[in-house]
């Protein structure tokens, strides 16, 4: 699936290193910078 600008961002809920589950929709009203990185121990 290829996303493009203007589309709705796919929703997700994922566990985080802060021990909380994070849902994208929790951040409505805020801009979100979503940074995918290949693996821990590499610079993001």
């Amino acid at each position, binding site marked *: *699936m*290829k*996303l*493009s*600008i*203007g*589309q*709705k*961002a*796919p*929703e*997700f809920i*994922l*566990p*985080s*290193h*802060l021990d*909380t589950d*994070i849902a*994208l*929709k929790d*951040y*409505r*009203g*805020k*801009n*979100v*910078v*979503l*940074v*995918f*990185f*290949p*693996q*821990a*121990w590499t*610079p*993001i």
Partner: protein
Amino acid sequence: MNAQVLGISVDHVPCLKAWADSLGGIHFPLLSDFWPHGAVSQSYGVLRTEGYSERAIFIIDTEGSIRYIDVHDFDNQPSNEILKQELRRLNPATSATPAAIQPPANTSLPHGGIVMYCTGWCPDCRRARVWLKARNLDFIEVDIDTNPEAANQVKQWTGGKRITPTFDIDGKIVINFDEKKLLEVLQDRLAQST
């Protein structure tokens, strides 16, 4: 800036925790796209066949729509400046205030407090060291001659030049040993330390 940074990889949570600890803590959430493996990466179209994701950045606006997409070469790190510009564009009201977030491109570099990017030989760095010590200010030095990532970071801040010293003071960037600007940024700390 009204923005939340979320990091995301296919690592499992304990691995992300250990990594964050090794970097002295990461203040934005690192999400684990471990199970079902890479499902979210896949839904964003950035899962590689090797099973981990590209380096990619999506900026999602307050309504949940995608406003910016950047998929990077594997070795190429995203530019903080570009991200800030994009965020300013989404958020013109806050454009006058300095960036409140430290963008995510460089979490393996120290951040928080006074970080001085310098070299072992530059005379201004020497003067800056003396200046900071004379004011009882603790700082961390990063040598850009030996740390290419740091050199790149400095170039991003300065528009391509290896200017030393360059300071990252809790996310505020001061380029060059600019005493006036340093005094301004360090006002609160100086008030505390005297």
